[in-house]
């Protein structure tokens, strides 16, 4: 029964995506919506990304310093491990999990409310492909802004790491050496590639749950929760597969 329901949902999702990825009626209107979504989904998320990345960067540094460093370990270990954690997992995967909560619930509740207040029906009656008009700009905006958010996250994490030096637990020189040690540029690209997939998951899955809402405000709330849970689970699965493919 659960399997049938899962396949049914997958089929509905596929049908919706087929409608989403069609040619917009008016490119002018698409660009207008796209810029609006860039601001709403991307620019408005910069604050939380910077804040969380700063503190996580600082905490990772302190934890590594306290738990790993010993006379047997090189001095650059703390900086090296901090950089690798930020670059390989935090700034792409964990940051996207956080965004799934913020952006995903926003998308699902916005589209869900439009559904229950008949705004989507109004678009359909006008002859507008509502799926394409509402969802495509969100997917395009989040996918195009996510590498910038990842970049901000990486830099802010490093700033957070340097901030711990003020507490005197280690020197900035050692940290800087570690951060630069055995740097592989490919890992940055891997981080960007992973984030593009995650951004697509967040925007499309949340839109799907919002678009298929039936009922009233309680259904919108449920859709919002389901969007966050499903996006998060899918991001974790995708992370597993992408990590295997990209680094394997």
């Amino acid at each position: 029964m659960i399997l049938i329901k899962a396949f049914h949902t997958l089929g509905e999702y596929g049908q919706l995506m087929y409608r989403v990825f069609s040619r917009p009626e008016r490119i002018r209107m698409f660009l207008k919506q796209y810029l609006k979504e860039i601001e709403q989904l991307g620019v408005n998320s910069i604050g939380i990304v910077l804040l969380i990345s700063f503190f996580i960067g600082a905490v990772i540094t302190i934890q590594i310093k306290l738990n790993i460093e010993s006379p047997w370990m090189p001095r650059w270990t703390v900086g090296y491990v901090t950089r690798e954690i930020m670059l390989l997992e935090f700034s792409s995967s964990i940051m996207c999990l956080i965004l799934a909560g913020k952006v995903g619930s926003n998308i699902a509740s916005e589209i869900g409310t439009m559904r229950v207040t008949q705004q989507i029906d109004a678009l359909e009656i006008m002859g507008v492909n509502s799926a394409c008009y509402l969802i495509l700009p969100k997917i395009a905006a989040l996918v195009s802004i996510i590498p910038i958010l990842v970049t901000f996250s990486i830099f802010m994490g490093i700033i957070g790491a340097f901030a711990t030096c003020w507490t005197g637990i280690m020197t900035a020189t050692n940290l800087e050496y570690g951060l630069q040690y055995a740097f592989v540029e490919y890992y940055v690209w891997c981080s960007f590639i992973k984030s593009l997939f995650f951004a697509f998951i967040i925007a499309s899955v949340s839109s799907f749950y919002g678009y298929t809402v039936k009922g009233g405000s309680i259904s919108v709330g449920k859709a919002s929760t389901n969007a966050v849970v499903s996006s998060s689970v899918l991001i974790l699965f995708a992370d597993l597969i992408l990590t295997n493919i990209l680094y394997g």
Partner: protein
Amino acid sequence: MIELNSISKSFEGKEVLTSISAIFENGKTNLIIGQSGSGKTVLMKCIVGLLMPDKGKVLYDGRNFLAMGKKEKKTLRREMGMIFQSAALFDSLTVLENVMFPLDMFSSDTLRGRTRRAKFCLDRVNLSDAQNKYPGEISGGMQKRVAIARAIALNPQYLFCDEPNSGLDPKTSLVIDDLIHSITAEYNMTTIINTHDMNSVMGIGENIIFIYKGTKEWQGCKDDIFTSENRKLNDFIFASDLFKKVKEVEIQNIEG
């Protein structure tokens, strides 16, 4: 003119509409009336294509809507305007932007031309002063008027209104009814109104279809209602003491 031929619709085996046939003429306000749950909204949704009927035909000036391809349907939709029960205005857009939306989407006119047309439509519904407000900042009656302005922006041939007076006070309801009635005559549109507001029935009911438990029970105009012998229609229309008295007076007038 819109023609319905034997429209039937079921949900999970339960028949909601049973072989409904009707003709809605242009230039007239056509009303679909009936109790809550009688199938009015389902019928309206079948007519506008938000639901697919199981059987039957919906003919828009002879063109079978249900047999049309995607492209033809899209073209036909541009000839339709709809006013929803909740007005269904876009929250993130101002009143003027809401009215301009269908023009921005489908008109090849310049921005100046589109703005002029939207302002004209707002002026037509006496809402020129509210053009920069958001839907959340205006009253329910004003929202319905904005919805009317948006619906007529593209000069539609067919206008659909799903309970346009729902949630409005009697005076505002009259304003909305008059507006829909005059616009229908002015643009010679085929207007279908879904309502259970008796004031609308008595005021603008030029062609009325009474739906009872998914079947067409009666058809006529507002004047026919007083002389109708249909018990189900009488039970529905003259449910309140006020309307019973109105009927008595009207019958006395007819006989006198």
